[in-house]
């Protein structure tokens, strides 16, 4: 006769939330370019800008939303799998979280019980 032994639960926690760095947008037009570059020089920042057209900016924002949505979907799926295969009620039932009373946890002097 064989007895099924349940696998030890993986019980992984979600990784800690990553806090993104705050970036600053510079809007540069034909009219304000000199002013923007002067500001950069004044702030001792290299006078160079990595730029996007307004249309590419729109695409970047859409890409951001798609990426964010994908993260939400994956986290939701992960949570669903965890709840299905490792429900919290079961995980708690098997752990060794029993608390001991003072008398149960009293140290035993083995020498005194020797014959």
């Amino acid at each position, binding site marked *: 006769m064989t007895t099924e032994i349940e696998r030890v639960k993986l019980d992984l926690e*979600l*990784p800690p*939330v*990553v*806090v*993104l*760095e*705050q*970036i*600053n*947008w*510079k*809007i*540069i*037009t*034909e*009219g*304000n370019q000199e002013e923007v570059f002067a500001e950069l020089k004044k702030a001792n920042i290299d006078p160079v800008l990595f730029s996007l*057209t*307004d*249309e590419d*900016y*729109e695409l970047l*924002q*859409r890409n*951001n*939303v*798609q990426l*964010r*949505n994908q*993260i*939400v*979907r994956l*986290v*939701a*799926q992960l949570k*669903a799998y965890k*709840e*299905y295969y490792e429900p919290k009620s079961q995980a708690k039932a098997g752990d060794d979280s029993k608390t001991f009373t003072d008398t149960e946890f009293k140290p035993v002097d083995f020498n005194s019980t020797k014959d």
Partner: protein
Amino acid sequence: MFSQLKLIIMGIAVLGAMGGLMYVQHLKSENEILTLNNQKLEGAVAQQQAVIEQQLKDIAQIRDINKELLAKNEKLVGDLNVANEKFNKVNASGERRDIGNLAVNKPKSIQIIEGRREKQRARCFEIAQGSPLTEEELNATKKSQINAECPNIANPNYVPY
């Protein structure tokens, strides 16, 4: 002669009694086996019933999970629509909103708005990863209170108006 006949009859009677006894014993053992088999079958039926019940529970849970994920997905599509609408909004005079044009005319204002929006975008990514919502986010019901980048995940109590 008569005593021999007596002995034969007695022998037949003893053999008959022994045979009867053996038959009864056989019936008893058969009965025990049948009782044991019956118990095993009853146990198997109970086990099968438990398996079926568990399977039904699993199917119900799977259905709930799928429903939940589908609802979440609909909300996410809503956020993508918000992004699309933001760039393609048509005003009262029928003109499509052009962020490029707005930025050419009011670069400073758009830069300030973008700075604010960037903070909101960063917060959206935190929420997407599982960061719990703040009281402010939960209680936001007005346009001025919401995270305009991802109201569907950041402000569950906000109803667009």
